[in-house]
């Protein structure tokens, strides 16, 4: 449904995307995971037809012409794209009209979407009086107005408080059960990424790895043990048989049995290890393992 082949984007002398390729199947929820500055928003802008790549090609919903792609995609931006001075209904109407929609069926569709996203009864409220969470719901209702086959979401929960973020994720889960929709979401938030069918990990403008969340976490295996210490190099040197990642005040090991290893290390290095955390591998561990950087 979405494919990108060897996309390259330069901002002046800086290369923002370098030979990026990905394939997203129909009905798939695909996450682009990476830290700030990894190029995921640039890739989003390319696929949303806002930015022409220096080279490479991309196909969205079978279309390559930007004007045709625009008919098939719904887009939710990281920042708000609503007119703050208009009411919710005025925003929805303007959006539909931009897609050539009008008439009784269109009004009926607005009503259905507002009901689905628990926004009914608020049609005449100015958008600037809605909470951040409600405004986000309007954004997604607006993006679905023309019944797109592909939904592009750019860091959709940025700026939301934890409650609003949880509500948003529940909303997306409901949406997923209700309609056949291909979704491509950029994020650096792990629980958002965990909900995707497949992920592409992006770092410094390049694809570093990809797969299902389970496959990616399987690359790490066993347990992840993180020690908080003032001397991480010394702790890492103590266990050369394990792969260690050293950071500022921490050192991380991947081991088959985290609990036993942590107990041995605490005995062997009394006073050096200040804190111990044992956990199953997360996508952050995958990212750390493949790039050496944290999300």
């Amino acid at each position: 449904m979405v494919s990108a082949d060897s996309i390259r984007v330069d901002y002046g002398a800086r290369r923002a995307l370098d030979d990026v390729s990905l394939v997203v199947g129909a009905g798939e929820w695909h996450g682009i995971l990476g830290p700030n500055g990894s190029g995921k928003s640039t890739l989003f802008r390319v696929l949303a037809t806002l930015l022409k790549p220096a080279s490479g090609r991309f196909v969205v919903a079978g279309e390559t012409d930007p004007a045709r792609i625009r008919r098939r995609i719904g887009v939710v931006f990281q920042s708000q794209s609503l007119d703050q001075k208009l009411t919710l209904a005025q925003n929805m109407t303007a959006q539909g009209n931009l897609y050539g929609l009008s008439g009784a069926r269109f009004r009926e569709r607005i009503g259905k979407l507002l009901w689905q996203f628990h926004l009914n009864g608020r049609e005449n409220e100015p958008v600037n009086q809605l909470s951040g969470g409600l405004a986000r719901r309007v954004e997604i209702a607006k993006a679905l107005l023309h019944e797109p086959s592909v939904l592009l979401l750019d860091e959709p929960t940025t700026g939301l408080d934890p409650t609003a973020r949880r509500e948003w994720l529940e909303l997306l889960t409901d949406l997923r059960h209700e309609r056949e929709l291909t979704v491509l979401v950029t994020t650096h938030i792990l629980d958002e990424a965990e909900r995707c069918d497949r992920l592409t990990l992006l770092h410094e403008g390049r694809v570093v790895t990809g797969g299902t969340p389970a496959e990616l976490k399987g690359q790490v295996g066993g347990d992840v043990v993180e020690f908080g210490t003032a001397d991480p190099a010394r702790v890492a040197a103590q266990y050369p048989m394990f792969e260690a990642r050293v950071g500022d005040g921490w050192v991380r090991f991947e081991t088959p049995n985290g609990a036993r290893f942590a107990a041995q290390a605490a005995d062997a290095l009394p006073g050096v290890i200040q804190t111990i955390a044992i956990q199953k591998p997360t996508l952050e561990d995958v990212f750390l393992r493949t790039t050496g950087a944290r999300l």
Partner: protein
Amino acid sequence: MNFLLPAWALTRREFQRFWGERSRVAGFVISPLLFWIVVGSGFGNLDYFFAGALTMTVMFSAMFSMMSLIEDRREGFLLSVLVSPAPRASIVVGKVAGAAILAWLQGLFVLSGVFFTTLRQDALTLAGVAGALLLTALLLTTVSYVIAWKLSSTQAFHAVINLLLVPAWMLSGAIFDPLFSFLWVRLLVQFNPLYYAHSLVRQFLAPGPGLPEISNCCWALATSIGIGAVLAVRSTK
């Protein structure tokens, strides 16, 4: 893809935003009249400055309406317009039409002050002036669109406007008659679209010697609007 519906959506939005901002509505009514009365009284002749006040009213309204393009980009609304399949030309037409109509209405409101002057007031004159003000509004909104599209801040927009449009208005004949100016001014006004806008208004209200013909004014304005529209569509991406 439908051309008119997206354009109408953007035009209607300009009106909705205008009515939603009380200070703009007040400014719409009061400031142009005040300007005309104060400056006209300063000249000791309300007739003399009336045509200049009309073009100035339209100019400021058009410029400030089009400044919203920069706000649209900053607030994100423009992004949702650009990812829609609306033809780029319909985006320009919608935005320009909304701002131009608001500027034109403001000009018409000030035109009602003609009944307090000794200028011509017959129906044909008023219709001619209304047409001239519409062309002026279209010219200024199109030019402002092209300028606003290139800029990322309202401060920069103000700076460019002060550098380009305000001097162009001063050299339009609104303040002094270019016929009696230095040679370089007389040459420069020939290439100033606002000179033709102001002259067209004068041709209907108070025709006098030395003004360009009505047909020449219309051609000059239509050509300038056409060039502006092409530049605006090309820059919208």
